């Protein structure tokens, strides 16, 4: 299990399904995934990013640090992408739900607090710019 020790100011860690071979991911790549500008992993499987509820503090931190946008700006962004037929990442009820989803679904990626991590999910190192 890899730790995200290089960025102590983050409250979240990025997790993927254990079948995913990646060990690290850049912030830029993660932003592309969560803005739905990247769709497939290198092995051809569909990327399935999942989000927390809009009011969740962890999601707000993720949006600020990875997507570099406020909730208002993201709302406008996703309204326009939706008009083009592109759906935002699915929203799950809680970090526990994210953990459970990523554990079960190949291709999925999410973010949770480090305390939720166990051997059923894989943590990937988030590389700063």
């Amino acid at each position, binding site marked *: 299990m890899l730790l995200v020790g290089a960025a102590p100011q983050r409250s979240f860690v990025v997790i993927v399904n254990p079948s995913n071979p990646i060990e690290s991911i850049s912030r*830029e790549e993660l932003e*592309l995934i969560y803005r739905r500008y990247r769709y*497939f992993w290198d092995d051809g499987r569909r990327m399935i990013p999942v989000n927390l509820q809009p009011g969740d503090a962890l999601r707000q931190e993720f949006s600020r640090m990875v997507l570099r*946008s406020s909730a*208002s*700006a993201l709302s406008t962004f996703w*309204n326009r992408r939706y008009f083009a*037929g592109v*759906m935002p990442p699915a929203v799950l009820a809680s970090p526990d739900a994210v953990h459970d989803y990523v554990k079960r679904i190949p291709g999925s990626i999410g973010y949770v607090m480090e305390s939720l991590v166990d051997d059923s999910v894989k943590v990937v190192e988030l590389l700063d710019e």
Partner: protein
Amino acid sequence: MRNALLLALVLLAPIAASGADMDIHYVPGRGLHLADDKVVLGGYLALNFKTLDESRTELALDDLSAFLTIAPTDRFRLFTEVELEDVVHIDGDGIGGNGDPVVLERLFAEYTPFDSVALRIGKMLTPIGIWNQIHAAPLVWSVSRPFATELFFDTQFTGLEIETRHNLGAYALRINAFGQATDPITATGAVQQMSRGGGARIQIGDLGHWHVAASYLRFLDDRDRIWKNTFGTDFQFVNDRWELMSEFSLSDPDGRETEWAVYLQAVYNLGAGFHPFARYEHVETMGIVRDPVSFGVDYKPRPNMIIKLEGVVGKAGLEDGGNGFLASYSVLF
């Protein structure tokens, strides 16, 4: 329209037969989701009020749109948008409406063989500029539409499009190339009516934050029966407080005078859902030179709703209704 519905049924059948989770759930502003998100039905509506010195005062349900996305596989999807225009209006003559309001706005199939490539065939929005690709009332900040975004090119085309995306470090390069070699599926109702043509748009920027782009289109106008060249540039910058948007469009028809238009729009997030905005335009068309200015404030009580109040000046003689006041309520569902 009937063929589009038949195609939709053909695509829905395997989804239903696959035993996909038929759970149905609605997400406000993100549509009705079915079959494990393989089918999404959404849309929007716009209720507009206008009182302009060169047209009737009017309250109208101007747009009622429905769009359907069907994605039976990870790499293939079908998208269609059907719109009812001028459904009902109230003006000095009483209640009226468009007798034949149903318009097929978009109908295309998309295949994504790789992350960096998307292939589309069908009727789509012409990828010139920004506004044309996001023109729906709940997505833009003003009731009125800038002249540079619709005066010099057909706002839709029927044909093929290829989109490629390349990541260049922190930036992204996106190229759209498109062409039309047949008559359109349905008439677009746009100022320009393209019967044949092709073009491209190249964009570079930090996706979701800023970009600059340039476009070119050469097309045969179905009404004038002359070939026209349209050049365009566009720019957008977005942060937590500001959205700046600008587009330039120039038409150079064979054997005719050049026309052009440009706008610069600024929107500020004041907080509590309020967004004041202002837009300056310069238009030179058919011998008329004008500098329209639009200004106003929007209120977004929810992310998928917007109420707009707008004043417009400087539009005399541009066949756009003139100067005055506009208001709108629109919602994305």
